[in-house]
């Protein structure tokens, strides 16, 4: 359940990336244009989402320990 909720964040973020409402907004925030500040914030939001994916939805079944030696030689 948690896993699906976190997966759902990805398409939501993708939609939020298209910030049409700031397209022609020339406001400055701390000296930077708001259209740039928004996307810097977006990078932090992406990092947070990845944090959730990694800590709450990690694919544990993928781990292969050294003991599990390659079963076949590639050819």
């Amino acid at each position, binding site marked *: 359940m948690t896993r699906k909720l976190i997966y759902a964040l990805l398409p939501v973020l993708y939609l939020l990336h298209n910030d049409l409402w700031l397209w022609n907004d020339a406001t400055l925030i701390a000296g930077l244009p708001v259209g740039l500040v928004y996307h810097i914030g977006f990078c932090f939001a992406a990092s947070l989402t990845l944090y959730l994916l*990694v800590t709450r939805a990690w694919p544990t*079944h993928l*781990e292969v320990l050294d003991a599990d030696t390659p079963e076949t030689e590639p050819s």
Partner: protein
Amino acid sequence: MILGIIAVYLAMVLFVGFASHRLFRGTGEDYFVASRSIGPFLLLMSLFGTNMTAFAILGASGEAYHAGIGVFALMASISALVIPSVFFFIGTRVWSLGKRHGFITQVQYFRQRWDSDAVGAVLFVVLIALLIPYLLIGVMAGGLTLSQITKGQVPEWTGGLLVCVVVMTYVCYGGLRGTAWVNAFQTMVFTILGGVAFWVIIGQLGGLETAIATVGASHPELLIRGENIKPLKLLTYTCIPLSVGMFPHMFMHWLTAQRAETFRVPLILYPLCIAAVWVPSVILGVVGHIDFPNLAGPAANSVLVRMIDLHAPEVLAGLLAAGVFAAVMSSLDSQVLSVGTMFTQDVVRHYGFHGRMSERQQVFWGRAFVALILTITYIIAQVSQRSIFQLGVWSFTGFASLFPIVVAALFWRRSTKYGALASIGTVVVLWTYFLTRGWQVRGYTVGGEGIMPVAVIILAAAASMIVVSLATSPPSPGVVDRFFPARK
């Protein structure tokens, strides 16, 4: 002075490359994938450094000079979401299969996944063809930048030669471990030097707020998206960073991780690394209008070099040159090694030795191919036209268009070799079609509406994969079960 700093920097790069050789175990698996022993820090630096080309430092500021702050949303912030997501869903799975089955190259995986030599052979040709322009751009950008920074003291051919010789030395000698160590060093160098250059130049322009306000007064259109970037372009440009799912050099770096968990920290930090490199590049490109108001077309790519020259010559110029070299070499080395690995494993080992090849032979052939590929690349770079830089985005388009293939291989049991071949065929046909239509047009989009060709090709490639797979007989369960292990 500048030349002295560059010489010291290149000597340091070689030293790091040689230092890594102390851990060399003499086997093919060690040479090509560092015995799958790389930890989180080196993995992050390798993945990020390989993906950040000189384009991120120089090209991004040039683009921002013309199109304004929207370049950050278009090329950087979307990558901050898409690239680590691809690593999460695809990279970890590729790593797991690689470790389980001992794969060293992409072609080995796809060939066995669909039990088809034809898929392997076709993919090999397509991947190599798409990677060649990318290699050429790296060598040419290195030479061009060095000649600009030194005001022609170092001619272009010498700069390109320096890049090739240094990369050849540490990649041949150190294999993937050498490449990963040098990448880590170079990635730190260009990130830190980018920050220093930003701080010094913005300080000289009277601080960030003053500089932005000055540009805003004369060029208000650069501080908004406005007409510079179409909304449909922002929407469809998302497809471009999907290319990391099919880059041979990314595939190679994924395989080097020690454990699946090694990916965790790099995934979280990747978006922040992107912001750290791209924000300064984009802002410097925009404020470049203050000192250099009338740069036309490709001349804008030198805006950063010109600003350094004006505001912080000598030491900083030398350091910037080192930073650009770092960005160029940290991509070129992985790409050359991945091509060398593919020739050794997928051609010589598979066809020449039918899978039987001693460890010594593998290392020998790996080194020979790295040297040969760099030599050929250097020679072609000397006779190529400058317009080859426009091929860069087409190289990305091609790799991104192959994305449905890796998704089908990893997630769709019912996909067949005919589906894969049809998908690759679709990419080749449509990519060639769009290339012939769009390559002379700067900023070409489908119908001029902002739709990137890559979005159309991906949809068509996915459709061919699905339709042809369903129309052909299902793959044998024995083959499929190897690649979809039951969850414990």
